């Protein structure tokens, strides 16, 4: 009953989405108030219906309804409740339903927070989002029905993939999708503006908070995914340049360029057509990512089980949505106008350079990800493009952008003077350069890459500090608090985000430069010294789990003769699937992780009480990677809390816009 209810809700949602996609758009073209007014209630109704469908699927999982094919394939009655619910989005069908839920959720949010938009613009934005919904709902209903029944019902489920039985599964996909899907709002705004012919600073102001929030969610989602891979996969890696990881990174790079471009369009009216293109590009890359994960054209750890019909459908969807929006862009972008002028050295020119570098970096990641496909399609052989390529290309590309991040915020709009900039930044540059050259010696080993990485990070810290210092010093307010309060949240958001990038770079540089890995055979009681630590292996004992049998190891971590931590790496064998998982044990600290995982039992006849092969890693400052990402995301959220975007101000803006539109 419940699955049928969910299925029916999806069908209704499709009908509502179709109406939402067509009627308000027509209403905006014909200036019919009643048709345009249909947009908001339609968006809300659609969200309610998809939420009902999602709830029905989640209920089926929670109540172990193995007559639903999806539940039987991805769940198990021994699975703890929170993982049963997370399994709702653990399959292709379920994750698509999550996509649809997020999409309708964002549409609903736009309908609620857009009272002050001109009716035509709001109607077009919601219509476009409705049309995208139509695509996803059609895909769900015709090729990926999550409510398909299994007759007769299975006695027990096949279990959720053990790799996914982790808190990461509860948080990573929803947050990631909030980001991916959130770019659809900027996309819809861009298309609505192209259709309506009005692309000005106010349009940028409306788009900006939506884009920044989506970007912040995407940052968090990607960081969570990376952290999850680090502690779950057992060998301490945190980024593999896997096609699906790249598929989330490309919208992120484009989204970063977009939020900066929107800033320029909002403040200076410049970059209009470029900003529109970026908005289209960001969401297009999200959709492309969806295609790559689900069509089977690329091999990836993340890829869902594939089916040719699905691949063709998504490709057709891509052709319509991306092709259509780029065609609209080709047709209308020319009439958008040039926007403000600015000098060779100015904040605008630096933001433009930063944007170009980010897009080139994105294009390189795209090139590397799709190149094996290109060559294979042309019958020129099969190659692999992996981390060695991406690291060789990506880091040199991004270095100039990072350097500009220190100069841009200090530059004046429209015209900045190089001598003035040099004067403001020379101390920051000197301090960063000298520290970066000296630090590696202190840390144990000098290498040019470590020095460059440290320079970029220290440069960001120093230039951010200089920026804040000069702001506060130049302020005419009284005490420190008043001076701090004089700056808007968007300023602090920017400082935080840039600071977060610096933290991230420190983490990456130091972990890559100084990590140590040892793969050793240890008898019970034997110790191994790695770096300044000693690891004592105390054997492995069996222990039961909720839906698995575990072999729990005990490893003591000593330093300077003192015991500082006892770690318990595990090997788990899951009951339902028989799969073995290696669970690493990590002693986390702000200055680095001690990471231990079990290899195999090698003491005579596989006896678990004997010797084992153990992997021990020292990962200096690795947590700064995710800390930096979270600080970046926090910066985004802080920036959005700016009162510019709050309702009261928007109402005034809306009133003005209403007057303008009525003319």
């Amino acid at each position, binding site marked *: 009953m419940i699955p049928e209810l969910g299925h029916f809700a999806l069908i209704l949602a499709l009908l509502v989405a179709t109406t939402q996609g067509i009627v308000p758009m027509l209403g905006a073209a014909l200036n019919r108030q009643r048709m345009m007014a249909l947009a908001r209630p339609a968006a809300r109704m659609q969200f309610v219906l998809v939420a009902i469908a999602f709830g029905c699927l989640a209920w089926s999982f929670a109540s172990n309804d193995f007559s639903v094919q999806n539940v039987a394939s991805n769940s198990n009655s021994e699975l703890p409740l929170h993982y049963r619910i997370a399994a709702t989005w653990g399959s292709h069908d379920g994750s698509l339903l999550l996509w649809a839920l997020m999409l309708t959720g964002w549409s609903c949010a736009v309908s609620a927070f857009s009272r002050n938009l001109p009716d035509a613009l709001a109607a077009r934005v919601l219509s476009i989002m409705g049309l995208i919904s139509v695509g996803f709902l059609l895909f769900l209903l015709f090729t990926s029905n999550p409510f398909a029944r299994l007759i007769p019902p299975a006695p027990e489920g096949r279990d959720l993939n053990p790799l996914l039985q982790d808190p990461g599964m509860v948080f990573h996909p929803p947050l990631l999708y909030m980001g991916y899907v959130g770019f659809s709002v900027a996309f819809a705004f861009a298309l609505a503006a192209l259709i309506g012919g009005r692309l000005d600073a106010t349009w940028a102001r409306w788009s900006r908070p939506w884009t920044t929030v989506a970007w912040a969610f995407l940052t968090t989602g990607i960081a969570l995914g990376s952290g999850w891979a680090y502690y779950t996969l057992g060998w301490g890696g945190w980024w593999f340049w896997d096609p699906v990881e790249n598929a989330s990174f490309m919208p992120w790079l484009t989204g970063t360029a977009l939020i900066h471009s929107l800033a320029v369009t909002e403040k200076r009216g410049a970059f209009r*057509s470029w900003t529109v*293109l970026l908005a*289209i*590009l960001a969401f*297009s890359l999200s959709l492309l990512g969806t*295609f790559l994960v689900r*069509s*089977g*054209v*690329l*091999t990836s750890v993340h890829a869902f089980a594939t089916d*040719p019909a699905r*691949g*063709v459908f998504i*490709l057709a969807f*891509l*052709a319509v949505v*991306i*092709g259509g929006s*780029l*065609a609209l*862009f*080709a*047709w209308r*972008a*020319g009439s958008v106008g040039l926007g403000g002028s600015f000098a060779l050295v100015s904040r605008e020119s630096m933001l433009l350079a930063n944007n170009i570098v980010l897009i080139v970096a994105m294009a390189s990641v795209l090139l590397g990800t*799709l190149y*094996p*496909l*290109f060559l*294979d*399609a042309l019958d020129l*052989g*099969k190659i692999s493009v992996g981390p060695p390529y991406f690291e060789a290309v990506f880091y040199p590309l991004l270095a100039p952008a990072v350097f500009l991040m220190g100069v841009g915020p200090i530059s004046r709009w429209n015209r900045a003077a190089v001598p003035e900039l040099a004067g403001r930044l020379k101390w920051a540059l000197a301090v960063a350069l000298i520290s970066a050259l000296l630090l590696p010696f202190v840390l144990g080993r000098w290498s040019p890459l470590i020095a460059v990485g440290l320079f970029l990070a220290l440069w960001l810290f120093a230039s951010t500090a200089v920026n804040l210092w000069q702001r506060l010093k130049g302020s005419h307010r009284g005490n420190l608090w008043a001076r701090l309060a004089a700056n808007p949240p968007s300023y602090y958001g920017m400082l935080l985000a840039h600071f977060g990038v610096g933290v991230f770079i420190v983490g990456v540089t130091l972990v890559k430069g100084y990590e140590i890995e040892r793969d050793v055979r240890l008898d019970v009681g034997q110790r191994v010294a790695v770096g300044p630590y000693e690891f004592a292996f105390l054997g492995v004992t069996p222990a039961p789990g909720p839906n698995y049998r575990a072999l729990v190891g005990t490893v003591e971590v000593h330093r300077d003769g003192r015991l500082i931590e006892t770690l318990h790496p595990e090997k788990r064998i899951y009951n339902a699937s028989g799969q073995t998982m290696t669970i690493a044990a990590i002693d986390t600290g702000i200055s680095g992780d001690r990471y231990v995982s079990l290899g195999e039992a090698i003491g005579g006849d596989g006896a678990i009480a004997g010797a084992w092969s153990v992997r021990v890693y020292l990962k200096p400052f690795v947590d700064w990677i995710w800390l930096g990402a979270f600080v970046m995301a926090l910066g985004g959220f802080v920036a959005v809390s700016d009162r510019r975007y709050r309702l009261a101000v928007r109402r005034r803006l809306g009133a003005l816009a209403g007057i303008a539109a009525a003319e």
Partner: protein
Amino acid sequence: MKMLRWSIPLAVFVVLLAFLWVGLGRDPHEVPSPLIGKPAPAFQLVQLHDAGKTLASDDLRGKVWLLNVWASWCVSCRVEHPLLLQLAKTNVVPVYGLDYKDKADDALAWLAQHGNPYTASIVDSDGKVGIDYGVYGVPETFLIDKAGVVRYKQIGPLTVEALQQKILPLVRQLQK
């Protein structure tokens, strides 16, 4: 003329779309063999049914033959086995088996149970000959000509289409 610049993103996308469309028909997991057109790697291995004798790749010069990589632990091998038995009966081309990373006893028992299509089977217990041939999964089948050059590799179980459309025509051509 202005419009040309704005159409560049669309043009790039259309090209990308074309590649993705072609890509849908390809299998990204398949690793094509670099040995096609090159001399088959030499081997000299003990025979499965007669542990006292060896078979060397040189012994097979002058005839067109198939090398089928199989093992008793391989599930997919059972799928292609009836096809191999049929092929052996037709006597068109001799099939030699490479028993890959297997125990001789298990292999003999498996052949006794499922039938033996092989003119002879050789034992590659440590997989070294398999590595020389670029074997990465079982089963795989190689077509080798009179001069000892590899002409075709079938990845995965043999299928009726592959036999009829690719392998047998090539065999007839090479046997002339």
